[in-house]
Structures are given as C-alpha cells and as structure tokens.
C-alpha cells in the first residue's frame, strides 16, 4: 500500500516536472489549459452537452430493442425464419463493418435525399437512427454471443419440462445470456456515449462542435479540453459500474461469493 502510494506520487511529480519544464510548456498552457478560456466556453459547452446526453439516452433504448431482435432472429432454428435470418446477418455484417461516422453521413444526408414519404428530416432524429443502426449491429453480436454461450443442456432441460422453444428462450436462456454479457454491453454504451460527438458532422451543435466553434474563433484549444472533460465525467460512472459488474461476475464464477 505504502509502496504503491509512493511510486504513484513519484511518477506524477516526475511527469509534472518533465512536462512543465519543456520549452513549449508556456505556449501549451496558454493554448490548452487557459482558465479564462475554460470559464468562457463552459456554459456553451454545457448547454450543447445536453444534446449528447439526450441522443445517448434515446439511442441506447432503441439499440437494445433492435439488437435483441436481431440476435434472437439469428439464433432461432425455425426453418421459416430463413429469410429474416439472412436479413439479420447481412445487417450485422454491413453495419458492423461500416465506420459509424460514415453511417451518420449516409443516413443524415442520404435518407432525406431519397425523398421518402414520412422519413424524418430533422437531423437529430436522423442522427439517432444512424447511431441505432451502427451500434445495433455491435450489440446484437454481443447478445448473440451471450445466447450461444449458454450451455445446450439449458435448452434441453427447458424443452423437457414441456416449455416451448420461445418460452425456454424467454425464461431460461435469455436471462443467463444477458447477465453474462452485461459488462461488454455497458462497454459498448460507454463507446456510444462518446460517439454522440460524431453527430456534429451533419450540422448538429453538440458539445464537441460547440468547443470547435469557440476554438476556431479564437485559435485556442482550451474549449476542446473542456468538452473532453464533460465526456470523461459522464463516462466514469458507467465505466466503474462495468468494472464492478465484471468483478462480481468473476467472483461468482470462481465460487467465492
């Protein structure tokens, strides 16, 4: 314990000394860590960060629903499901393989160009759709992996108790599967929280874009650091929760509970 503390403090002091004694430190401090610039940009970035939070919360719910549907379609053995399975497989392949940024650009600018009746034209909702499509593919794969990790004997025992395939899935397999994949799922959501910044590319003024506006107006980078802090602060609780869940799962598995 003492050793850990001493070595941590020493490392920090050495790092601090090395960085602040660099010849360019003064310029870096003025450009990246200026307290007045930080204060000036804070309210605007805070307002814009509400957009990120809103996008994250809405997208998360939609992603879970879509991913669960896709994952289940892909594991169900019923022969009549074949075309749906094909669609689900193509969907995961395509959207997992396409960078989220491109999906946002394609949906944000491409969907309205189609002039479809009833398609949303509001960029915020187009952005939500894009995030849902992109992350839905990742999360579907995570959930599918969870389902496949449940031992076949669980299926067999469910069926032998007279439950239908669907009921077995619903009451026996899915609960176990979801519990197993909770840490990677949360990990994906941490990632999603950050990727809401990508929505700026279709014209939405969210935290990063607001920071960029301030930054390029005055040629300073402090607002970008402020925006980064917002994302970090919002991510930490989720990250710690993920750690705690993984730890708990590991303990249970080793029987130490």
């Amino acid at each position, binding site marked *: 314990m003492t050793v850990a503390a001493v070595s941590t403090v020493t490392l920090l002091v050495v790092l601090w000394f090395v960085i602040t004694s660099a010849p*360019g430190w003064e*310029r*870096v401090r*003025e*450009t990246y860590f200026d307290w007045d610039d930080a204060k000036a940009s804070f309210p605007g970035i805070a307002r814009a960060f509400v957009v990120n939070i809103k996008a994250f919360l809405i997208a998360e719910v939609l992603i879970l629903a879509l991913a669960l549907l896709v994952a289940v379609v892909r594991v169900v053995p019923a022969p009549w499901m074949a075309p749906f399975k094909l669609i689900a497989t193509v969907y995961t392949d395509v959207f997992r393989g396409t960078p989220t940024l491109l999906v946002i650009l394609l949906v944000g*600018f491409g969907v*309205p*160009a189609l002039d479809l009746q009833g398609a949303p*034209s509001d*960029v915020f909702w187009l952005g939500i759709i894009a995030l849902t499509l992109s992350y839905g593919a990742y999360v579907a794969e995570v959930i599918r992996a969870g389902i496949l990790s449940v031992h076949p004997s669980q299926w067999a025992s469910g069926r032998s108790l007279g439950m239908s395939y669907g009921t077995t899935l619903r009451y026996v397999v899915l609960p176990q599967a979801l519990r197993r994949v909770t840490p990677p799922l949360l990990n994906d959501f941490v990632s999603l929280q950050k990727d809401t910044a990508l929505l*700026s*590319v*279709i*014209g*939405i*003024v969210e935290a990063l*874009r607001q920071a*960029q*506006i301030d930054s*390029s*107006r*005055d*040629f*300073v*980078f402090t607002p970008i650091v402020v925006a980064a802090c917002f994302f970090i602060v919002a991510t930490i609780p989720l990250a710690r929760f993920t750690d705690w869940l993984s730890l708990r799962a590991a303990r249970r598995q080793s029987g130490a509970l």
Partner: protein
Amino acid sequence: MISVRRTRTARAGALVAAGALAFAAGCAPADESDDAASDSASSDADCSVEALPLKNAGRLTIGTDAPAYEPWFVDDDPTNGEGFESAVAYAIADRLGFAEDEVDWVTVPFNTSYQPGAKEFDFDINQISITEKRAKAVTFSEPYYRAAQAVVTLEDSEYADVTSLDELSEAKLGAQVGTTSLEAIDQIAPTQQPGVYDDTSKATQALELGQIDALVMDLPSAFYTVAAVLSEPSVIVGQFQPETGETEEFGLLLEKDNPLVTCLDATIDDLSSDGTLDDIEEQWLSQTTGVPELS
C-alpha cells in the same frame, strides 16, 4: 474593432513586428500617405531574399487548405497563379523577389493552421479573418481583402425575396465552423440553433436537403457556391457587413512572432497603394458588386 491600416516607420526587427498587430489594434486609423512613405524605407532595407527568415532558404513556402475553392483559387491548384488568393500570393512573392518557380505550396487544413509550435509554411493564405484574440496564437499580416457576408438560399425558398436581416430571424441558418460568417449569424439573432458544418460541401448539402433554410458565407464564396456548387437553382439573397464580430478582413497567417511579417506587411502596403490589389480583386472578384444590401 480592429483597424489595420497602420503606420510603420521603423525598419523593424522581430520585436517590433511581434508587437505591431497588438499596437495597430489599439491605434486610431492612420492616413494612407503615411503608409506610402514608410513602405519604401522598410522594403528596400530589410527585405532582400537573402535576409528573409524563411523555412527553406531562397524559397517561399506558402500554405493553404485543400480543396482550394474558387474564386480564391482556380481548379483546386494554388500553383497556377489564378484566383484571387493565388494571384495575391504570387504578387507578394514577386514583390519580395521570388521567381514563380521559387514558390512552394503546402496543404494546411484550417484546423491545424493555428496549432501551437513550428509551422511548415512561411505564411498561410486561406481566407483567414484577422481578430485580436486569434492574434494571440498566431501572427497576422495586414489585411489583403475585406469581405462582406452574404445569405444564400434556394430559389423556391420562402426566404428568397427578403430584404432585411430581421426577416431571416425565423429561418434555420447554417454556416461553416471557424468562419466569421458563423459569428455574423448572431447579428440576425435567429430563433433556431444554426447548423454548423465542417466544410462548404456539407453545408450546401444540408441546404439542398432542406435541413437549413439559408446559408451565410462570405460574398465571393457565395458567388461560387451559387454558380458551381449547388445543383438546385439558388440565389444570393443579399449581402451585409458583419457588426457583431470584428470587421471581416483576411490576413496572411504566420507562426507566432515570425519576423517575416514586417516584410510581408510592407509588401502588402505596396501592393495596396499602387493599386495592384485592386486590380487583382477586379479580375477575380468583380462579380461581388450589384448584390442588394440587407438592412
């Protein structure tokens, strides 16, 4: 408000050059005649090619963003001397004593042009507006151009016929990040959050898709956008002088405290007083007259 027509009597070293912009900012506008008198003194004395503090000895290295748009550049090729900024750059190079083949161009994305530290260009020419705050991070030359802002919309838009900025307050407006246009939007006091885009192509895309009602950009760019970028029929609703930000003046961007600015300023003064800049403006930006003023 910054006034950049300034006097310069010193054959200045680095220190004076560094202070010049801040000095000019606080200073009252000076007469043109003062400029002319001081020019010849400084340009003859310090500004021979051998004496210039250059990145590559004997060669002038100029930065600009890619793609390089008309009317500032032609055919996305800064090296051809065509387009307003390319012509200005070569006029400056010529006046400093560089032959055309002694000028090198490097690509500098706008967002990296103001990063702290050493630059790979002697100066960057990229429609960069001079502001006092920006001048803390980089050094600006004197302005080589003053731009008005313009409002662009589609021909069938309900905003195509407005005659005042007030009438635009209900519109969803858009602009490119890092431009004075974005600040000029404050002058319209829009009720909706403006769309902010990485570059002109995304902004025009949003306009065509109806995600924004009108686009605010500097007047010469507006001409090019209406003529060549937008595929749907579009119009320049009108022009206005920005009042919310500082006056829209484009300057050359240099690494902070680069003493080269003294010679560049003297050269720009020269080009301005002998009418060369006006001629170049006439040649490449002549369409900018005849657009109605928005009150």
